């Protein structure tokens, strides 16, 4: 493998990893904070991709809207749709089954099915192309290597999300409450913080990030199908299990590891790429049964 292939694989692995991270961060916090297993998280990713598709298509006609502005709008609208869907999902489906893992799994799987069918009703059930806007296409010369600029953008957006999330979690009062709630929910409630409201906020933010991830995933693959939610769910679960349920740092490390491993293994042997994901998860669990950054729950 020469240097340029290595760098290409490295960048695409990092880009995929960043998308996984955006999807996984919300899910892992939701679990850490409220002990909720959400199997419907992929739905928000699919929704984000489809909403972005609609916005990009609607704006593509008028020339004054095209360009970075439209892209930004697509992201914002997708995130808003994700947050709204998240709040509805939490209120309607999850609220009655707090504390019951089995029912949570069943209900959220049901929610995923119903949501996917709703998406099919609105956007149709066939695959649709989702091409990045013209200014995002093309490549950058980086030393001897040519890199697709869209991938660099994805890495940059992912990093920005991680930094923003870290700042909120470690530097603000809200973040303090969230982190304390992850460690000991009862104590936070006893101290008088409205843990339920904080939780809904986290759920909405997590769904919004998932929607952003879904949009970037769709642009990365240059197409969307209603089933991407269920497909991405599997990868996101692998990420949060490896990272340790409840840990954002773990989600980042797990996501990048997964993105890099599947890209490099896929380069050497495409048939092994599917196994690489699960093999990586098993290896991590053998080494650290509670994930890379396990939570110390009291």
């Amino acid at each position: 493998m020469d240097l340029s292939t290595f760098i290409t694989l490295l960048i695409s692995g990092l880009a995929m990893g960043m998308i996984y991270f955006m999807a996984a961060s919300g899910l892992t916090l939701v679990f850490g904070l409220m002990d909720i297993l959400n199997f419907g998280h992929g739905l928000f990713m699919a929704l984000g991709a489809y909403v972005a598709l609609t916005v990009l298509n609607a704006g593509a006609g008028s020339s004054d809207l095209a360009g970075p502005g439209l892209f930004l709008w697509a992201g914002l609208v997708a995130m808003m749709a994700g947050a709204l869907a998240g709040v509805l999902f939490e209120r309607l489906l999850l609220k009655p089954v707090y504390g019951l893992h089995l029912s949570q799994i069943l209900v959220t799987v049901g929610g995923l099915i119903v949501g996917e069918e709703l998406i099919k009703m609105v956007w149709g059930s066939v695959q649709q192309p989702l091409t990045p806007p013209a200014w995002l296409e093309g490549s950058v010369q980086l030393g001897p290597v040519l890199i697709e600029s869209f991938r660099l953008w994805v890495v940059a957006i992912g990093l920005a999300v991680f930094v923003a999330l870290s700042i909120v979690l470690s530097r603000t009062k809200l973040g303090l409450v969230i982190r304390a709630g992850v460690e000991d929910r009862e104590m936070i409630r006893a101290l008088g913080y409205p843990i339920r409201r904080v939780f809904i906020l986290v759920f909405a933010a997590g769904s919004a990030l998932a929607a952003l991830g879904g949009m970037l995933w769709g642009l990365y693959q240059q197409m969307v199908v209603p089933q991407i939610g269920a497909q991405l769910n599997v990868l996101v679960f692998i990420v949060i299990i490896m990272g340790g349920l409840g840990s954002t740092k773990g989600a980042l490390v797990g996501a990048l590891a997964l993105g890099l491993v599947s890209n490099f293994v896929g380069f050497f042997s495409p048939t092994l790429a599917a196994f690489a994901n699960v093999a990586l998860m098993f290896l991590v669990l053998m080494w650290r049964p509670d994930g890379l950054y396990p939570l110390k729950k009291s």
Partner: protein
Amino acid sequence: MLSRLLSHDWPQGGLLRALLVTTAIALLTAPFLGFGATGLNVAAKVLVFILLVASFDLLLGYSGHVSFAHTMFFGVGAYGLALSMKHLGTTVVGMLAGLGGALLVSLVLSVLIGVFSLRVRAIFFAMITLAVAAVFQTFVAQQSWLTGGEDGINFRLPEFLQPSYRLIEGGLLGLDITGRVLSYYLLFVVVLVCFLALLRIVNSPFGRVLQALRENDFRAKAIGYDTLWFRVAASVLSALFATVAGFLLSLWLRYSGPDVSLSFELMVDILLMLVIGGMGTIYGAVLGATLFLLAQSYLRDLLALCFEALEGHAVAVLFDPDRWLFWLGLLFIVSVYTLPMGLVGKLRNKG
């Protein structure tokens, strides 16, 4: 005698008993009821799914673990028969070898998954099985030299199970006893035996420990039960019965492919059947599978009617027959909330 066969676990409630007896009689006499080939196909599918859902109940209903890899074991059984018929020759020995091989593969896979995920943290189980099942699906789709890829494998059965075989020509109550009828009764006997065995297992001391783990894991551990062993054993047993069900399905279809035996949709169907029928009852599998498979065709027809009646309205899209999963999904969510033990639980309380 009957009580012993049912492991003293009678389906309580008059209506429930009546429904179960009706279903059993209908399945026993299906070839003679004159529903033709389609009717017999539905009956055979009901048989296979009763076993598959009952085996899922052992894991989900009795030990409280959701596995998304249940169709994987179902698929292992289906491909086991397909591969043995294709490569080992169409004999009874070949069939048994296929079954044995499939059971062995399922045993190894389920022990590995169980030991890994349940040892680590029980809540990982659902997610890990989902990941493993996804990989297995990709594997089957990719390795087309072995599995036929998306097309699957068509194969022939031993002569006496082929449709062209006649045991008694027009002999029994005006019915030709063909290889199809023999296949059907082979399915019936195997499903009945496995069903009674599952009933036996959940009512044994072993089954009681599983329920104890489900209700209060910590306490069961404190009493001194090796919780890991019981969990893994339950998931292995459930996987083995699912393998048998897959074997029977491909025996009936003389075909094995990813759509009929592995897809995620199938997994969702099994979940629906079990939740609607009743988790933790075993009998729920009978009601759930029968109702679901009848509804699958019936609901689509009903939706098609509504769809035509509402032609042109904006809401018509809700009734598109291709969106029938939407309604089943809603039904599923509602039953999780309102029917914790499904139809069986509801009918039991009444009786």
